[in-house]
């Protein structure tokens, strides 16, 4: 501060300096409040709860792959689609430990299309084992009672028969996780137990209408990795789906639109809610796979906000031609 300045000018300068600092302080307080606010309170779990962080399960060199198979039969469609992407061996190598995240959300029969179809599970397990996988685990944290969900959806018996383990969620299987830079997934329980030791993660999801988010495909499928009172997230369904897509980087995702649940999702109920759409979509880019799949529900990707959110966050792309999708027609 120069002593040559008149006193008024000094006061003004000092005031501006203080105003600047106070403004910075206010901004810092506001930012801290915005970022650190926690209306829920801490989780019960863990003594000083060690957090877990999901690794990336992406297979090096296999990014930006997308294939679409037109077929009315799941098993041949899956085989053809994988062939188009370089074969199952491009994703699963000998000795791998593979987790299949299915959608077993509801205790409904396979015919209602609200859950991953057991045929798809059987074929994927078989392919993984044939590629030399040491272990295949099928898991989900369903909405309804887990044992009945896996039994009634047919996924449990199908997986076991094909040689996979079925991992039902137990209280010990959940560990807190935080998405770096996330707004919703903070210190939240993640279904981590079944993923221990796993080095490949494949998502198998049916294509469904969803009352809250319009469409439920492979990104929404990761919702089943959350525990706790996760339905609080329904207030920001698009936000949570986009964050889930950032949290989980799978080796491969498969959207089963051979039959799609086009109305009254995600539970459906009537066979009349289903429509044969004869399409199976596979890829390593969740956003692109889902963007193709919502077309089966008569939607365009702009109508499903979480696709844009996830693309903006760098999870994948909505520019489908840039991925050079492979199209396969089976008779």
């Amino acid at each position, binding site marked *: 501060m120069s002593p040559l300045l008149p006193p008024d000018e000094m006061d003004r300068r000092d005031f501006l300096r203080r105003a600047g600092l106070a403004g910075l302080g206010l901004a810092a307080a506001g930012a801290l409040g915005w970022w650190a606010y926690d209306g829920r309170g801490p989780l019960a779990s863990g003594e000083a709860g060690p957090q877990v962080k999901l690794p990336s399960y992406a297979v090096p060199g296999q990014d930006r792959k997308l294939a679409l198979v037109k077929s009315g039969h799941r098993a041949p469609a899956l085989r053809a689609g994988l062939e188009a992407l370089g074969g199952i061996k491009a994703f699963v190598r000998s000795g791998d430990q593979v987790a299949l995240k299915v959608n077993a*959300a*509801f205790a*409904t*029969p396979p*015919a*209602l299309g609200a859950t991953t179809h057991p045929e798809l599970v059987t074929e994927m397990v078989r392919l993984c084992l044939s590629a030399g996988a040491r272990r295949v685990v099928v898991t989900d944290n369903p*909405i*309804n009672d887990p044992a009945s969900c896996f039994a*009634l959806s047919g996924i449990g018996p199908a997986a076991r028969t094909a040689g996979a383990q079925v991992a039902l969620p137990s209280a010990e299987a959940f560990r807190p996780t935080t998405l770096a830079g996330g707004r919703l997934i903070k210190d939240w329980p993640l279904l981590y137990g079944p993923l221990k030791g796993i080095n490949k993660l494949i998502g198998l999801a049916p294509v469904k209408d*969803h*009352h*809250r*988010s319009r469409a*439920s495909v492979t990104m929404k499928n990761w919702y089943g990795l959350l525990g706790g009172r996760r*339905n609080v997230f*329904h207030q920001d369904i698009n936000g949570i789906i986009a964050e889930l897509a950032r949290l989980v980087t799978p080796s491969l995702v498969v959207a089963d639109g051979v039959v799609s649940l086009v*109305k*009254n*999702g*995600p*539970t459906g*109920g*009537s*066979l*009349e*809610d289903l429509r044969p759409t004869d399409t199976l979509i596979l890829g390593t880019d969740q956003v692109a796979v889902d963007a193709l799949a919502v077309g089966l529900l008569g939607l365009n990707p702009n109508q499903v906000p979480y696709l844009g959110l996830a693309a903006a966050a760098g999870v994948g792309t909505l520019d489908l031609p840039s991925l050079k999708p492979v199209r396969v027609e089976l008779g």
Partner: protein
Amino acid sequence: MSPAHAQPGRGQNLVGAAVLLVLALVAAGVYWQQLQYDPAQWGRLGATSGQTAGPLAAFSVPGLSPLDAGQSFGPDNLSDKIDGKAELYLAAGFESLHTRRYALAGQSAAWLEVFLYRMKSAEAAYSVFSSQRRSGAEALTITQQSYRTSNAVYLANGPDYLEVVASAATPGLQKAVLDAAQAYAQARGVKKTGAASEAGLFPPQGLQANSVVLLSKDAFGMAGLDRVYIATYPQGSQELMAFLARRADPSQARTAAQGYVQFLLGNGGQESPPPAELPGGRLVEIMGTWDLVFSQGPFLAGVRGGEDQAATLALARLLRARLSEVKP
């Protein structure tokens, strides 16, 4: 205590008054806050949760045997059963859900599940019934609002909304879902439908059967646009949607119509000159289709989604003619 003090100036008086005002606001805020509380928090358990079938406990159908004891859900935990769709019911006015699984005698693989939703009102039940109606289903006469699909029966009955869903579409199960629905209707008695008389005001010419739906909350994505009836009119390859909503009086209907037009304009709509055939109507082009909005007496009404302006206008004229016949 003090020896002498200066007379307070105007600034002091103003600041003093402002501070006292803040104190009054704090007191008012505290008083308001103490009214906001949830008595259930202080130790009472929500009455509608747990492993009981509630009204389904005594429900039995000849030839069907229960697979489990059934479950009940309240607004707090509805999403434990139908996560993803719970909001549809909660927005319409939900009280409780009771579910139970039954199997055909001797065949545990052939089963069905009964979902009994108790809604806050008959209208709420009609709303969830109509907004999930499956097209091309076969109407039934079990209650005034009931239909079947290949594997299920759905019905609204007073404040109840019932779904009976079978695991497959076999003849045995098809009969069983019908039996179960009928057994319910007999036990509960047939009640008045929740569809208000508005539902009958849509012009019958060209109306698709069973297409009237009551949207109970935030219709067409517009917050606050509640209790709107919609109906579908197929026109060749396209579909027109007529809608109407009764408001308390004509002035409120007018305000609502203007609000909806503003909503359309705010979402990328372009207003065209008002059509001569329909004085007072407002024509908006949005995403390549025509929306026509007007008010008639206590009704807000209109037609949505027409690709052809003439067809839109024609249906709107029919609708307005019907509405103008309604006695105030």
